[in-house]
C-alpha cells in the first residue's frame, strides 16, 4: 500500500465499502491507535495477489512435521482400550496382566468399575510401550467385564422420536399458530416436505492425538488440534484433576492435518497421553487409528426436517414453518439445523422454532464445518425448488424475488451468466423430455451465507483479547507470529501477506509461525473466525513495527517520519530512500518488536455481519443404474477483502468437494445389534476421490466491509452451506422428483424414478 499513513486519525472515518457498483461511503468509528483501515479504494501490492502458501514447500516435500511425525529418543507409543458394548457399566476391570507384557512402560485406567459406558469405543484404559504392536498385545490382556444394557444407535428408534410414514414424511399434526396458519391459508401456492441427512464423519487425514513430553513439571504437547489455547487450558485442568503436578503446559501445533471442527478438544486421548508420559517418565505418542477417528472423535449429527410454506401470486414467500430433529450421540446435543432464512424476510413464522435433539448410544456429535448448515440448507433449498416448481417459477427467479441481500443479488446475475444457467436449464429440460432417454440432466443453484466475522477475543471486562507479534531484525529478517493454529486454512500465509503489505516487502521475506502457545494468543479455528479475528491484530503489529522503523529511517535521512513510505522493498520519500535491508541495519541488536492489538469490530457494518455466496451444479443421472455424476460446479463467494487468494480459492473448492461427498456418498452406517459403526474406514465410508470431481470454478469477490482495519472475513463455513444443496437441486431437476434423503445413492435414485413412472 503506497499512500502515506496518517498516524493521528480522527475517530470517525469515512470509508468506501462494498463491491463494484455497490460501493458506498459510510462513516465508521475507528478505535484510537488502530492502523488506518483499508477500504474499496485501497491499492494493494501483496494482499489478494497470487502469493504461494507459506508452508507449501514444507508440506509437499514431506519436511513439515505434524504431531503424528514428532519423535524423541526413547519415544513410547500408546493405544487406548475401548468399550465393545454400546451402553451399560464397567463391572470389573483388571489392568495388572497388561503391566507385565513386553515393553509396557505404563498402564492407566480411564474408566473404573461402576462407571457408565456410553457408546462402542468409550475409553476404558490406555497403555504405552516402545511399539504400537506391543501396546496392542498388552491391551489384549486387560480383562474388562460389563453390565450391558439395551441400546439404540438409530435416532428414529429413540423413545422420543417423531413418527414418520413409509415415505419418510413426518405425520404428527402441526401445532396451531394463529398468524402463521392464516398466512398459510392465504397463500396462492403451498407446499410441504420432509428431508433427512445422515451422520457424516470429519475424516481429517491426520487422526486425533498428541505427543507428550515432560521436562520436570513442565509439559509440552505436540497436538493435532484446532484450538491451541483451548486445549492448553483443558490439559492444565486435567492435570490438576488428576493431582499431577504441572507448572506449565505448552501446546505446539505448527502443522495440523485437518480438523473441520472435530479438534477443538484435547479429548480423552490428549489427557491420556499426558498422564502416560508422566507415569512412564518418557515421551509418549498417542494417535488414534482411523476406526477410532471415525467412531470416537465426533461427527456431523443426522437431521430430520419438515418444512411447509406458502407463496403469494408474485412469488414472495409469505409463510414458513419448520420442525427439525437432530440425530445425536449419547449427550443428545449438537444436532441443531440452520436454514437459509435470508429468503424469509416477508414470511409469517412461528415464534418458537421447534427443534429437538434426539440422543442415541453413539459417539457424540462435534461441530463440523458450518454446523447445522449443510443439513438445513440441503433441506430448505430443495424445498424451495419444489415450491418454485409448484408455482411454475424458475428456482433462480424465486430466490431473486425473495433475497434482500444486495451482494447476493449481483451474484445471481454474475453466476447465471458465468454458468450459462438459463441455457443449461433449458438444454437439460429438452434432453429429459426425449422419449426413453437414459442419461437425465439437471442444473441446480443454492445460496450460502455465514454470519460470523470474527471477534476481539476480549472478556466481558475488556481484558485479554487476541494479538499477534511482529519482529524486524537487524539482518533484515521479519517474523510474524501467532499462537493460534493453521489447520490448512492459511493463517501462516495471512500472517506473511499482511506483514509484507504493511512493510512494503514481498510475502516470501516474512517468516510466519503459528501454533505455539508461547506466542500471542488467538482464537480456535472455528466458525470461520480465525482470519477475521486475527488479521486486524497481525496488521496492527506490523503497523506498529513500521512506525518504529519509519522513525529510524526518518532520522537517518533527515525527513519527517510522516513522509516516510514503505513500498517496493524501499523505505523513504520519493527523493531519498533506503532499501529495506539497509534500513534494518539501523536497528540495534534487539529487534523492533510489537504486539498487535485486536480492536473491537467497527460499528456501522452495512453487510449485516456476514458473507454471501452462491453455488451452481450440473449433474447427470443415469436412469438405468441410478448413479449421479456431478458434471461441473461454480461457486461465487464473498469473503471480505480477500487476503490470501490461493488458499481462499482452495478452501472454497474443498467445501464444494466435501459437499459432493455429503450429497452423494457419505453416511455412517451403524449395526443396530452391536452398536458398532460398520464402515469406519476409508474403504466403505466413501469420501470423494479424484475421479469424482468435475471441473469447478470459483469466483472470489473482494468486499470491503468496514468491519476492521483490513475488512477480513473467514471462509471455512460459508461455501459449505451450498454445495450439497445445489447438487440435490440439480438432481431434482434431472429426475423431476426430489431426492429428499441424503446421500443420494443409486438405490434411492432408482426407487424415486420407479415411483415417478408409477405415477
Amino acid at each position, binding site marked *: 500500500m503506497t499512500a502515506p499513513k496518517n498516524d493521528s486519525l480522527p475517530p470517525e472515518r469515512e470509508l468506501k465499502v462494498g463491491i463494484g457498483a455497490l460501493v458506498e461511503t459510510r462513516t465508521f468509528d475507528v478505535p484510537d491507535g488502530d492502523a488506518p483501515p483499508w477500504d474499496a479504494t485501497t491499492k494493494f501490492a501483496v494482499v489478494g495477489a497470487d502469493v*504461494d502458501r507459506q508452508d507449501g514447500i514444507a*508440506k*509437499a516435500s*514431506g519436511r513439515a512435521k505434524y504431531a503424528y511425525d514428532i519423535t524423541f529418543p526413547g519415544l513410547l507409543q500408546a493405544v487406548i482400550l475401548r468399550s465393545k458394548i454400546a451402553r451399560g457399566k464397567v463391572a470389573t476391570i483388571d489392568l495388572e496382566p497388561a503391566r507385565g507384557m513386553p515393553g509396557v512402560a505404563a498402564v492407566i485406567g480411564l474408566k473404573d468399575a461402576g462407571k457408565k459406558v456410553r457408546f462402542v469405543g468409550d475409553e476404558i484404559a490406555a497403555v504405552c510401550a516402545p511399539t504400537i504392536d506391543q501396546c496392542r498385545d498388552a491391551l489384549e490382556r486387560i480383562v474388562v467385564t460389563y453390565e450391558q444394557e439395551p441400546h439404540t444407535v438409530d435416532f428414529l428408534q429413540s423413545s422420543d422420536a417423531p413418527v414418520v410414514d413409509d415415505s419418510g414424511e413426518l405425520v404428527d399434526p402441526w401445532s396451531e399458530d394463529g398468524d402463521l396458519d392464516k398466512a398459510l391459508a392465504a397463500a396462492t401456492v403451498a407446499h410441504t416436505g420432509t428431508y433427512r441427512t445422515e451422520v457424516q464423519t470429519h475424516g481429517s*487425514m491426520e487422526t486425533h492425538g498428541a505427543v507428550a513430553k515432560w521436562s520436570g513439571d513442565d509439559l509440552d504437547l505436540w497436538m493435532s488440534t484446532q484450538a491451541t489455547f483451548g486445549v492448553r487450558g483443558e490439559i492444565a485442568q486435567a492435570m490438576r484433576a488428576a493431582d499431577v503436578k504441572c507448572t506449565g503446559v505448552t501446546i505446539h501445533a505448527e502443522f495440523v492435518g485437518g480438523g473441520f471442527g472435530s479438534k477443538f478438544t484435547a479429548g480423552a486421548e490428549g489427557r491420556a497421553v499426558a498422564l502416560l508420559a508422566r507415569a512412564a517418565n518418557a515421551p509418549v505418542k498417542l494417535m488414534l487409528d482411523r476406526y477410532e477417528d471415525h467412531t470416537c472423535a465426533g461427527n456431523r449429527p443426522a437431521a430430520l426436517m419438515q418444512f411447509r410454506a406458502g407463496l403469494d401470486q408474485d412469488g414472495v414467500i409469505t409463510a414458513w414453518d419448520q420442525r427439525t430433529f437432530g440425530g445425536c450421540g449419547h449427550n443428545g446435543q449438537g444436532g441443531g439445523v440452520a436454514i437459509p432464512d435470508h429468503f424469509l424476510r416477508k414470511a409469517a413464522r412461528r415464534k418458537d422454532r421447534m427443534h429437538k435433539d434426539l440422543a442415541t448410544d453413539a459417539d457424540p456429535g462435534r461441530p463440523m464445518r458450518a454446523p447445522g448448515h449443510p443439513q438445513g440448507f440441503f433441506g430448505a433449498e430443495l424445498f424451495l425448488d419444489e415450491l418454485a416448481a409448484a408455482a411454475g417459477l424458475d428456482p433462480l427467479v424465486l430466490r431473486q424475488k425473495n433475497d434482500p441481500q444486495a451482494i447476493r443479488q449481483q451474484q445471481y446475475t454474475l453466476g447465471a451468466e458465468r454458468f450459462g444457467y438459463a441455457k443449461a436449464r433449458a438444454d437439460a429440460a429438452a434432453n429429459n423430455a426425449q422419449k426413453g432417454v437414459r442419461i437425465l440432466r439437471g442444473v441446480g443453484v443454492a445460496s450460502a451465507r455465514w454470519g460470523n466475522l470474527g471477534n476481539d477475543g476480549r472478556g466481558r471486562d475488556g481484558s485479554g483479547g487476541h494479538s499477534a507479534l511482529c519482529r524486524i531484525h537487524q539482518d533484515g529478517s521479519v517474523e510474524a507470529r501467532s499462537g493460534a493454529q493453521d*489447520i490448512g486454512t492459511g493463517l501462516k500465509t495471512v500472517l506473511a501477506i499482511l506483514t509484507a503489505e504493511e512493510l512494503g516487502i514481498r510475502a516470501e521475506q516474512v517468516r510466519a509461525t503459528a501454533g505455539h502457545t508461547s506466542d500471542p494468543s488467538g482464537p480456535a479455528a472455528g466458525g470461520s473466525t480465525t482470519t477475521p479475528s486475527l488479521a486486524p491484530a497481525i496488521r496492527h503489529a506490523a503497523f506498529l513495527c513500521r512506525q518504529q522503523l519509519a522513525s529510524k529511517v526518518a532520522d537517518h535521512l533527515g525527513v519527517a517520519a510522516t513522509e516516510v513510505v514503505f513500498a517496493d522493498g524501499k523505505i523513504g520519500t520519493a527523493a531519498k530512500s533506503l532499501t529495506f535491508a539497509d534500513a534494518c541495519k539501523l536497528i540495534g541488536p534487539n529487534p523492533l518488536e510489537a504486539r498487535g492489538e485486536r480492536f473491537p469490530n467497527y460499528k456501522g457494518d452495512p453487510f449485516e455481519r456476514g458473507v454471501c455466496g452462491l453455488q451452481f451444479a450440473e449433474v447427470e443421472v443415469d436412469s438405468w443404474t441410478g448413479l449421479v455424476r456431478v458434471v461441473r460446479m461454480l461457486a461465487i463467494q464473498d469473503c471480505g477483502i480477500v487476503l490470501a487468494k490461493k488458499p481462499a480459492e482452495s478452501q472454497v473448492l474443498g467445501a464444494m468437494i466435501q459437499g459432493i461427498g455429503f450429497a452423494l456418498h457419505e453416511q455412517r452406517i451403524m449395526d443396530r445389534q452391536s452398536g458398532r459403526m460398520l464402515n469406519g474406514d476409508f474403504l466403505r465410508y466413501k469420501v470423494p476421490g479424484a475421479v469424482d470431481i468435475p471441473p*469447478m470454478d470459483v469466483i472470489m469477490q473482494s468486499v470491503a466491509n468496514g468491519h476492521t482495519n483490513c475488512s477480513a472475513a473467514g471462509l471455512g463455513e460459508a461455501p459449505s452451506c451450498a454445495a450439497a444443496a445445489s447438487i440435490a437441486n440439480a438432481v431434482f431437476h434431472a429426475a423431476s422428483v426430489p431426492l429428499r434423503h441424503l446421500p443420494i445413492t443409486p438405490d434411492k435414485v432408482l426407487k424415486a424414478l420407479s415411483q415417478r413412472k408409477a405415477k
Partner: protein
Amino acid sequence: MTEDRSTGSAFSRRAFLKGASAAAVTGAAATAATHARGPVELETFAPGTHAIALQVNGKEQKLAVESRTTLLDALRDRLDLTGAKKGCDRGACGGCTVIVDGVTVNSCLMLAIDAIGKPITTVEGLAQGGVDHPLVQNFAHCDAMQCGFCTPGMVMSSLQCLNQNQQPDRQTIQRAIAGNICRCGTYGRVCEAVERTAAGRGDQALRAPAHGGSK
C-alpha cells in the same frame, strides 16, 4: 482399537501377519527346494526383532524391525522419514505412498522385511542437492494442498504418473491419484500441479516475484 478386535474376535491383521510369517518358517523349511512360484530364495523371518538393511533413497539403512513391522512404520519410526503419512494403516488413503522397485505401494500394506533388497524412494528422496523436485515446487505454486497431510503421498502418486506418462491428460492424472484421499479437497489443483510439471514448468515460476497486483 483395530476394527477386527472390537468384534471380540482374536483375529486381527497383525495376528494374521504374525501367524503367516511363523507358518512361512515351517512351510519354507519343508518346501523351499520345490517352491513352484514366488522368489527364488525365500528369506523367512521368525516372530521377534531382526536387524535388516533397506535401500532407501539411494542409501543403505540398517535398522531393527519386528517381522510384523510394516514398511511405513519402519520408515517413520525407525528412520524418521515422516513424509509418508499414516492416514488409515489399511491401504485405503494413499497417504503412505512410496515407490518400491519402480512401483507405487501403500507402505502400510507392505512388511519392512518384504522390502529388503528393493530400491525404495520416499518423498524425502525427491530433493537433490537442497533443491526441491519441480513437482514439489508446482504443488506449492498451484496450492495443491490445504492441511497438507495427504500431500506427500499425493506427490508420490503424481510422480509415478509422470514417470509412466510424460504428458498425461486430466483423466490419466485423476486415475493415478485415485488411491489418494484428500479430505480438504485439493484434487483439481493436484491435477494442475502435475500438468504444470509435465509442461516443464518449475523452478522459473517460483523464482519470479510472487507478488503482483496494481500499484
